[in-house]
């Protein structure tokens, strides 16, 4: 009876572990996959591990993650332990009140904590800006920096803040289990409180400290949301890099780095556990090394040593911090925010090697998301690559800096037909990056007839198989275009009609999901029949699924231009100019065009691309493919560019968009 029970309980536990580990196992297995799929196994290889170590974006984010987690854990463990001791010796009422405040970061939703801290930091920076300007004007002795930004410092503060409660929560109960009289007895026997701490309290609460530190470290490594709001533009953790990728396609390099991390931690934990188990078996005789150390430190000689050690430790910590911040300050950097998979990453490496300027490359999901990042202060980039209508809006709100075109000689290579467009008629703020059209991408094996009209996106026949845009402007545009209205209409009834079309289709279950870059995975894997996206991306998908077809609907569509701009007060203006000039070169445009399959605005690149392609791949680039990349005039004639909408219409868009999701 008992035995069967035991078997049953083990079976249940095994099931739970299977559930917990199945996805991880999958991830580890596919890190050794030859191909880049997460589903189809094409053979064993270590290629992803090799390319991992060459991928500076990932390596840098791993470094940031480990650094911030280690520092935050160290600080939080020390601070949390002392705080717990302090709390413990407070009166009960005060303690309960403080404990409640202490549990706020744990009880509060991560997103609220993240947002709150972001608001706080930005408000503080504004205040600091005013203060330091005043302070620097009244005296000359100390010059305060006038501009603070989100970055590693704020990230660290945030991590320390949400880590400390976990330490307190693990140490607190250990303190309460401890005999209260012990401390008093020690002090009565002549211990200073420092000695009482080292000799009496610390040994008692050590298990609590250890588990608190472990929890804190784990939370730090796993955190995404709070980091997302507090890291700013100059540092990104592994989680943030992954988030940027989950939207498109997680490269197997991420699988590889996670496997490495996982195996390292597993090995560490196994070693620690084995040692503990062995120590237990051999009895109390073998004291842990830390106990020996405390004992040694209590001799008179040790006391001197201890003081010395404290000084050395503090000093080395300070030096480390200074070196770290110094190291990041010494090298010139440029902070770039673009779209996911919107650059040939070799260009970043090439630029860094040529100029010695480090590139912090981050991505936003859509123009609207970029705008939110800029407005909230969470993104203080140098270079951004928004689309036409968003550029107009940013100029309108005085958020862009004028470019110094004398530093961007490659601007001359831009085709004349892409200069002085409506968003920047006087050519003061922008250098075009890439352009393209929006159209329907569909799987020919999953639809009955070739698709030519937007009607497919509202058609019940494809219920559950349609992917719609997850951004208001593009989603509304499909409906507006289908109804025959202008994409830039400000007429409320027209907009409401378009909204109703979308809403009805959603309620009838036409849409499988609202997507941005996730569309790659879904269409390539044959998980959906129809999607609407950008022309260049279709060609990328075609590489992985030959059944896909693309059409710019007969009703018309949107054609867009994305252009590089520099934000007002960008801290790295010089570097930004260098970056823009580098990207505007014909070579970079060719590389990007080949990687993105979005059309280049660079006249030479546009003309040379078919030859470049043939040389690179040994086969001809068909006219059809070229026309999808760079839409011919007759297609462009039925397309319309987005213009910036008046504030009132933008508010309506926001309201309608939120309503669509309800």
């Amino acid at each position, binding site marked *: 009876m008992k035995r069967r029970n035991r078997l049953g309980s083990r079976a249940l536990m095994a099931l739970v572990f299977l559930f917990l580990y199945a996805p991880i196992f999958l991830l580890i297995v596919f890190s050794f996959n030859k191909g880049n799929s997460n589903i189809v196994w094409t053979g064993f290889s270590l290629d992803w591990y090799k390319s991992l170590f060459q991928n500076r974006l990932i390596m840098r984010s791993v470094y940031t993650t480990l650094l911030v987690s280690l520092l935050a854990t160290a600080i939080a463990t020390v601070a949390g332990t002392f705080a717990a001791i302090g709390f413990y010796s407070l009166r009960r009422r005060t303690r309960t009140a403080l404990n409640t405040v202490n549990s706020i970061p744990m009880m509060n939703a991560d997103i609220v904590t993240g947002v709150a801290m972001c608001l706080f930091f930005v408000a503080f920076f504004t205040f600091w800006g005013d203060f330091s300007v005043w302070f620097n004007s009244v005296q000359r002795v100390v010059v305060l920096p006038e501009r603070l930004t989100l970055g590693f410092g704020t990230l660290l503060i945030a991590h320390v803040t949400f880590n400390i409660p976990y330490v307190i929560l693990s140490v607190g109960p250990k303190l309460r289990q401890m005999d209260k009289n012990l401390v008093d007895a020690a002090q009565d026997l002549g211990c200073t409180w420092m000695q009482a701490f080292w000799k009496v309290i610390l040994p008692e609460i050590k298990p609590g400290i250890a588990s608190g530190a472990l929890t804190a470290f784990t939370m730090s490594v796993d955190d995404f949301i709070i980091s997302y709001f507090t890291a700013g533009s100059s540092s990104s953790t592994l989680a943030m890099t992954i988030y940027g990728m989950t939207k498109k396609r997680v490269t197997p390099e991420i699988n590889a780095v996670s496997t490495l991390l996982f195996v390292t931690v597993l090995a560490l934990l196994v070693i620690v556990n084995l040692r503990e188990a062995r120590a237990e078996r051999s009895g109390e005789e073998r004291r842990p090394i830390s106990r020996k150390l405390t004992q040694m430190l209590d001799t008179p000689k040790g006391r001197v040593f201890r003081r010395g050690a404290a000084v050395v430790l503090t000093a080395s910590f300070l030096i480390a911090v200074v070196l770290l911040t110094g190291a990041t300050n010494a090298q010139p950097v440029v902070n770039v925010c673009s779209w996911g998979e919107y650059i040939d990453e070799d260009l970043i490496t090439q630029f860094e090697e040529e100029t010695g300027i480090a590139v912090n490359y981050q991505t936003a999901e859509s123009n609207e998301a970029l705008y*939110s990042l800029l407005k909230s202060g969470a993104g203080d980039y140098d270079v951004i690559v928004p689309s036409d209508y968003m550029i107009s809006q940013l100029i309108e709100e005085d958020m862009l800096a004028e470019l110094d075109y004398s530093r961007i000689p490659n601007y001359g290579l831009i085709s004349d037909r892409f200069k002085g467009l409506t968003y920047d008629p006087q050519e003061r703020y922008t250098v075009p990056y890439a352009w393209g059209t929006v159209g329907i991408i569909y799987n020919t094996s999953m639809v009955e007839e070739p698709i030519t009209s937007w009607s497919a996106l509202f058609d019940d026949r494809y219920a559950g198989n349609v992917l719609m845009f997850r951004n*208001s402007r593009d989603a509304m545009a499909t409906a507006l275009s289908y109804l025959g209205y202008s994409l830039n209409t400000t007429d409320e009834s027209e907009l409401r009609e378009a909204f109703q079309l979308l809403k009805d289709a959603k309620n009838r279950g036409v849409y499988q999901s609202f997507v941005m870059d996730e569309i790659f995975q879904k269409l390539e894997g044959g998980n959906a029949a129809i999607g609407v996206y950008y022309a260049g991306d279709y060609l990328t998908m075609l590489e992985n699924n030959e059944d896909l077809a693309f059409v710019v609907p007969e009703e018309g569509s949107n054609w867009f231009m994305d252009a590089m701009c520099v934000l007002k007060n960008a801290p790295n203006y010089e570097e930004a100019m260098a970056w823009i000039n580098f990207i505007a070169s014909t070579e970079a445009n060719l590389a990007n065009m080949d990687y993105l399959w979005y059309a280049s605005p660079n006249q030479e690149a546009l003309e040379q691309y078919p030859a470049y392609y043939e040389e690179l791949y040994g086969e001809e680039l068909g006219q059809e493919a070229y026309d999808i990349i760079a839409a011919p005039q007759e297609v462009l004639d039925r397309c319309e560019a987005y213009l910036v909408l008046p504030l009132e219409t933008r508010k309506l868009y926001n309201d309608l968009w939120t309503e669509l999701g309800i």
Partner: protein
Amino acid sequence: MKPKLSRFAIPYVIWMALFVVAPIVLVVVYAFSNDLGGFTLENFSKMGTYAVVFGRSFKLALIATLICLVIGYPVSYMMSREGERFQRAAMVLIMLPMWINFLLRTYSWMSILENNGLLNQVFQKTGLLSLYNSLFGTSLEYFPMMNTQGAVVLGMVYNYLPFMILPIYSVIVKLDGSLVEAARDLGADGVNVFRRVILPLSLPGVLSGITMVFVPSVSTFAISKMLGGGTDLLLGDLIEQQFLGGAYNPQLGAAISLVMMVIVVVCMVVMNRFGEGEEQAVIL
């Protein structure tokens, strides 16, 4: 001269005031202001529109929490019955998944659950799908699992189950064994021992487990975006949309966060009435 240990608390109290309390005060201020900085209640008057979102989020989070409890409690209980080495290994195994970022683990679920994903391929190859079709007269090519509320709940359970197991386990394992013996000596049978001794004593762990699963579930946005398809918003999505998403309106976002915070706090206070005040459960 006995220096007071309580002064150790001072630095952290200052830290909390700066980085915990002040930011939250700021959220409250934002919630009551318009985009020009003036006072307004407009953000809250809109709240009725979002009742559906609130309802949906709380429903899904509640289901996920219940499932976690139903799985987590027995597992914690059984774990505590095992030998010490087994317990230690099991603890490590439960903590370990957190070392792979949750986004990645959730992403991995995507490739398992997709229409053309691993699970559906297994169903097709083993003939389960055709069996199902012939049994029920349907003609499914796959089981639609992705982009459903079920998938979102699965994602929540998967990601937050350890947060239920760890606190419950840490309380049960510290239970005084002599209490159980005493109960048995006094004639209680197995069911009664569990119901009248073990269960009430493990309540603090259960409560803290519920909190630690429910709060992140109700506010998640990554999971619903990845597994739920993003067509039906959850609270986290709604908030994220106001701050960093497509509909920039931080005042409204702050107001929604505030309402959510208040509801959660009220739930917790009511729930904690059932538990003991002082004795907080620990994660480890």
